[in-house]
């Protein structure tokens, strides 16, 4: 990979994700091994997909938790979805907050679950803000086709 200022910025940004515990180093390294010449945008597409889908899951979780009565089946399904996809891209903090919310929800404490959901939303917003910039930089760093 070229060692341009942009690539250096990307390296620094990626390392900060690991240092802040936002992304799991091992899982991201593994995903990078899956990228190849036939699909050079695999990582960017994966991150973009995750941001869109996780936003949807969190919206569904919020609606389910606010419903009267609470929609347990939607909560269960969305929590497992978010747990699985966040683990798969190495989004450690989101995965952690999802597990916390699951535990609190399973304990039956709805008010604590709502508080836990707010924490999850904050983590998600923080992660999204940074990852959107990272994905944009990844795209810019790709060599031009022409």
């Amino acid at each position, binding site marked *: 990979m070229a060692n341009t200022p942009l690539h250096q910025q990307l390296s620094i940004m990626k390392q900060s994700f690991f240092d802040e515990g936002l992304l799991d180093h091992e*899982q991201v390294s*593994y*995903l990078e091994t*899956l990228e*190849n010449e036939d*699909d050079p945008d*695999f990582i960017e*597409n*994966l991150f973009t*997909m*995750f941001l869109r*889908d996780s936003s949807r899951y969190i919206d569904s979780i919020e609606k389910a938790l606010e419903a009267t009565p609470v929609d347990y089946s939607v909560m*269960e*399904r969305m929590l*497992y*979805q978010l*747990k*699985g*996809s966040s*683990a*798969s*891209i190495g989004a450690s903090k989101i995965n952690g907050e999802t597990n916390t919310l699951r535990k609190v929800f399973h304990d039956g404490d709805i008010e604590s679950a709502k508080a836990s959901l707010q924490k999850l939303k904050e983590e998600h917003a923080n992660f999204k803000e940074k990852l959107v910039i990272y994905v944009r930089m990844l795209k810019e760093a790709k060599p031009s086709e022409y």
Partner: protein
Amino acid sequence: MATSNGSSTGTKITALVVDDDRVINAIHCKLLNKLGIENHVATNGKEAVDLHCSGKKFDLILMDRDMPIMNGIEATRELRAMGVRSIIVGVSTRSIKQEIQEFMDSGLDDYQEKPLTSSKVISILRKIDFVD
């Protein structure tokens, strides 16, 4: 490492990824592809069953547990009742023994916790003698 010859006839190993999460499907398809495995996707258990009803066959099925319309437990039971003898591996985030056992009892050959990795898939393929 996996070979592209799944049998003595030299045909490629085929796999069906059954999951309603796009991120999981993208990762699992990519890792199967890298191992030389031809893969298809179903986004819920009913789609997986319908594929088999249409005559499709797969050497390996990676089955998620929690899906809309028809979940992994129901789909696995249905496929086994239809006489499907493929290797079905349950893939889920569930970690409670009872829940895993419930999924295994539906007819799975193996269970792996998400996220799948190449080494987990290779260990599955080794069990079914598809790789050295």
